[in-house]
């Protein structure tokens, strides 16, 4: 399970809820690659709370 987030400057990233890891939207990051595979399986992240 994941949750989308935005910073004060509206930079987007995603939180892996199992360990609260913050994952950048970098295609070379293997955690982000795992998130993309999770999306491809039809899953949907929790929505972002603005300006966290």
């Amino acid at each position, binding site marked *: 399970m994941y949750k989308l*987030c935005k*910073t*004060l*400057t509206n*930079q987007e*990233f995603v*939180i*892996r809820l199992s*360990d*609260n*890891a*913050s*994952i*950048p939207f*970098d295609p*070379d*990051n*293997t*955690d*982000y690659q795992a998130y993309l595979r999770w999306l491809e399986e039809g899953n949907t992240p929790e929505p972002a709370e603005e300006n*966290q």
Partner: protein
Amino acid sequence: MALTQVDQGLLGTNAQYTGFKNRIINGAMVIDQRNAGASITIADSSFAVDRFIYVASQASKFTAGQNLNSITAPAGFTNYLGFQTLSSVSIGAGDYFVVSQKIEGFNSADLNWGTANAQTVTLSFRVYSSLTGTFGGSLRNSAANYSYPFSYSIPVANTWTTISITIAGPTSGTWIAATNGVGVSVNFSLGVGSTYNGTAGAWASANNLSATGATSVVGTGSATFYITGVQLEKGSTATSFDYRPYGTELQLCQRYFQTWGGTTGNEYAPWSGLGYNSTTAEGCFTFICPMRSAPSLTQVGNWVFNDVASDNAAGTLGIGTTGLQTTQMRSSGATGITQYRPYTLRASSTASRIQLSAEL
């Protein structure tokens, strides 16, 4: 005295003067940033020492750790990576229990694999098990569709055995160039089902993790498997292990993983920032060295923002704009923060950690 002749012994295959010949990082298992030598019930896609990832199709089947069970390391080594079966598994076709190192493309591209100029490599390691027989592993490409299963023998239980396997480089298959992706995966099987097994000693267009007929460590309760001195080098001969200074080996690992805290309980992290409002602060976190990719950040335990006069609970730390050397780090749920006041970031206990991962 003028140097007129180089000792041929220094140029021979047994010379110990050639640094960085080993494409494996932390092959002597000396660096364990995550666990500091503690044993763990190892989970899928996790690390018992740096750079060696464990992947498994079933959870909670091994305890693992640096110097697990405190056996005597082989001569010339002080550390090893150990596994012990927690509960035995009857391996199904699609099961896999493997420890691997993924070598970055920047460190393997010169092997010219997938071309007519493919270079021969030699894999060597020391291994020790409570079991005897034929064991297996493989080399595999990034796309997991081209691989070379290998097998080796452990003839005597509970004794270190030195293994050397020479592998002609593949002239086929797709291998990535000098990039930060996976160049070559080196896999050691602890038990692999038939779906991921292949004939030892031959390259194949398949996702093989081990060799057909190899012993399954996970198939025996309380079985042990220890390994160290892992070296992959260019050429057809296993040369002496490439010992590198501890600081050098640590920095090689820190391209993939960095951690702060977990020591004195009041360790500072390399962050400086300002209060944004009463519950949020934001600033720049600087890495120890450039990382392979923009890293993920995991916070363990509590941290505080310090303004010299007081500590203020930092709440939840997260990333923003992230590069290879810095990240914008911000908090949410902090307490007592004053807008525009400068803060430093400090651990609040020995359990506090900030971990960055850019693993392959």
